[in-house]
């Protein structure tokens, strides 16, 4: 079946909340019902029909033709199916996603993949700050699934990461992997200051590490079997990550200021 297409008519003046436009919420709705879904975040009412030319199709396969950095909550709580954004997206794309896939051809705002628990989020451009991170008072970040960023990510990528794998093929801002609870963060470009600050457990692999905090202690150079396994599993999605994981890597254990059972790897 052909995909369900939302083609952007014009850039919106206000931020839009696209959380309602996910497969499980539009399935079974008529064209008129979908066009009437309200997406505004200010007192100025804006419906899906005001913003998009809507082309009915398979609700399990949604395409946004034309994006905007004002598109918030794209793919919110996605359970299955796929969403493709041909363009940019705003805050918190794929937040609370538990399955399926979200792909963005452009760049996205902060909190992409926040509290994501399953499925695959792929960002072909750049991601903003707090990739996969919790919002406001939440205690846990991403807890499963995969995020691939082909460009770069902002500060605190993988903050409070609890489970799951993040691969950033470009660079990362300051504090990559801050407060990590567990999980895996791989950065192929350069990294900002103090990776793994306050991390309890988990694995950070950095191709080009900055100076690391003194509460990470050297545990020598190794080629560990788990890295070989991860390399093999990641190869189809990120050849660069696979290549990095297969190199001899220095292991630093930390953050000893916190629990200290995490690790930062970088090429020896």
């Amino acid at each position, binding site marked *: 079946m052909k995909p369900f297409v939302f083609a952007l008519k014009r850039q919106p003046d206000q931020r839009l909340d696209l959380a309602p436009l996910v497969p499980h919420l539009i399935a079974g709705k008529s064209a008129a019902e979908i066009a009437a879904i309200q997406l505004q975040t200010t007192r100025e009412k804006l419906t899906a029909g005001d913003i998009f030319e809507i082309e009915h199709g398979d609700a399990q396969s949604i395409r946004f033709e034309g994006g905007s950095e004002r598109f918030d909550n794209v793919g919110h709580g996605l359970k299955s199916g796929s969403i493709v954004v041909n363009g940019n997206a705003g805050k918190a794309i794929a937040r609370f996603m538990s399955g399926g896939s979200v792909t963005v051809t452009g760049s996205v705002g902060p909190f992409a993949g926040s509290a994501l628990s399953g499925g695959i989020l792929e960002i072909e451009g750049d991601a903003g700050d707090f990739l996969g991170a919790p919002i406001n*008072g939440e205690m846990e970040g991403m807890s499963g699934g995969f995020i691939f960023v082909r460009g770069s990510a902002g500060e605190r990528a993988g903050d409070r990461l609890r489970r799951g794998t993040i691969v950033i093929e470009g660079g990362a801002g300051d504090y990559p992997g801050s407060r990590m609870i567990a999980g895996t963060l791989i950065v192929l470009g350069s990294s900002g200051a103090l990776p793994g600050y306050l991390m309890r457990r988990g694995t950070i692999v950095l191709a080009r590490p900055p100076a690391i905090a003194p509460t990470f202690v050297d545990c020598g150079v190794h080629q560990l079997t788990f890295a070989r396994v991860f390399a093999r599993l990641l190869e189809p999605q990120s050849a660069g990550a696979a290549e990095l994981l297969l190199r001899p890597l220095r292991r630093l254990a930390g953050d000893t200021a916190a629990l200290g059972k995490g690790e930062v790897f970088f090429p020896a």
Partner: protein
Amino acid sequence: MLILLKGGRLIDPVNQRDEIADLWIENGRIISPPPGRIPDQAHDLAGKIVMAGAIDIHSHIAGGNVNTARLLLPEMHRAMREAELPFSTAKWSTFETGNIYAQMGFTTVIEPAVAPDHALQAHLELADIPIIDKAALIVLGNDDFLLSLLRDGESRSAVADYVAATLTTANGLGVKCINAGGAAAFKYNARTFELDDVVPHYGVSSRQIVQALQQAVEDLKIPHPLCLHTNNLGIPGNVTTALATIEAARGKPLHLAHLQFYSYGDEGDHGMSSAAAALAEAVNKAPNVTVDVGQVMFKQTVTISSDVLRQFNGASSAKPRKSVIFDGDANGGGIVPYLYQENSFINAVQWACGLELFMLIEDPWRLFFTTDHPNGAPFTTYPDIFALLMSRDARAQAMSRLPEDAVAMTTLNSITREYDLNEIAIMTRAAPARLLNLKDRGHLGVGAVADVAVYSPDKDISKMFRFAHLVFKDGDLVVRDGRVTHYRFGKALTVRPGFDKAIEQRLARYFDHHFGVTDNLFAVPSHLLPHDEPFQEVACQ
């Protein structure tokens, strides 16, 4: 405006009425039927139940710790619905608090733990709770000034003057004491604190502090007896503490807060059992003692307590795992989120303990309906609790979802009592008014404040109490069909016991010397509160 509530069933235990009758309201008061006059507003209440507005004597709805809880847990109270009245759907806000209380037919609510140095904030918050009247109990018993008076063996009147001056400055309705000496001892690294443990540096015991405050409240003729949150809250086996505390009252008036949290034995495989039956018996035999329950319900909540020692110890079971532990000038407090779960043995015993107390304490005039909001459960669960009290079947159904071995550690299964509406009205209207010396509230007699709740009887008791058919506050119809129609703002009730003004100079010197600030920083000037004439005095006895 003359209002007629026509033909409802009036349930008014104070005036010993339970009958179909008309009720007339004018100028905010209940009046005798005015012969020959035509009402401006008439409501046909055939088949409805009419009671006085309910009074909640113990609910943490304002003040520093409550507000910290709001800020601690933004993820738990996201609003989702457009407001009909300003902020009415803002979860956990003062506005929502007033709305929900009013919708349930509550018209007066007491915030039972305001630290003197946070009184202004507490009153600012109370002032922003619409519709209901409210009041604050002022927390004493861990403050350096009082402990120093006791250590130095100062006179009974010095203590009473200090209590009265503080209460007056803070605009309180009564005195609360929370783990007397425990918060102070915690600053010296005590991790437990019993009734006869002594506060380091001061050499006074918890018992001495309680008895001194109890004496002061009695001497000042403050209606509400000392409201005591005693030692060892929440700890298995703590029924011995509660029983000893009842003894320690020596026959003088004492209110024991959220007794449920003290009704635990330590029997069985889990070292946790219900001792509620024994405790209820002790309460039945002590006519000087009043209690409120602090019922637990199975829900996510956040515990907010000035018992900083207990909250520190409880922080390891926080869910979500974050907490604020505040060593304040005296008590401080702790904010610890908590999730009561049906499948938890301990939580199930706690739930049953509360209901046992409700069922086994015989005198509804000495037993008050609370969840210690939000510590046992949010006050939004009240309608569900009414249903449990009024229906044995509802209790059996709830029990069937709990671990059997937990229920077996309680007597709840064997209890058949069911509350009737008259008893509900005593517990939630008549008795609280008597406790607080609010002679014109809690009943429907002529001259009473026209705080009136009208309910539609329903097989679903919870539904009946969640959405009142009509609610009048001071004769103003504020709730229709369970929804607040407009805002008005009530008063904060206070007492103004007399005292020797010499204490004020002494306090000024104390603040200047110890804290390096002037004592009037803690004043609550009424012109800084958002509504005119924010206070209403309640007479001392």
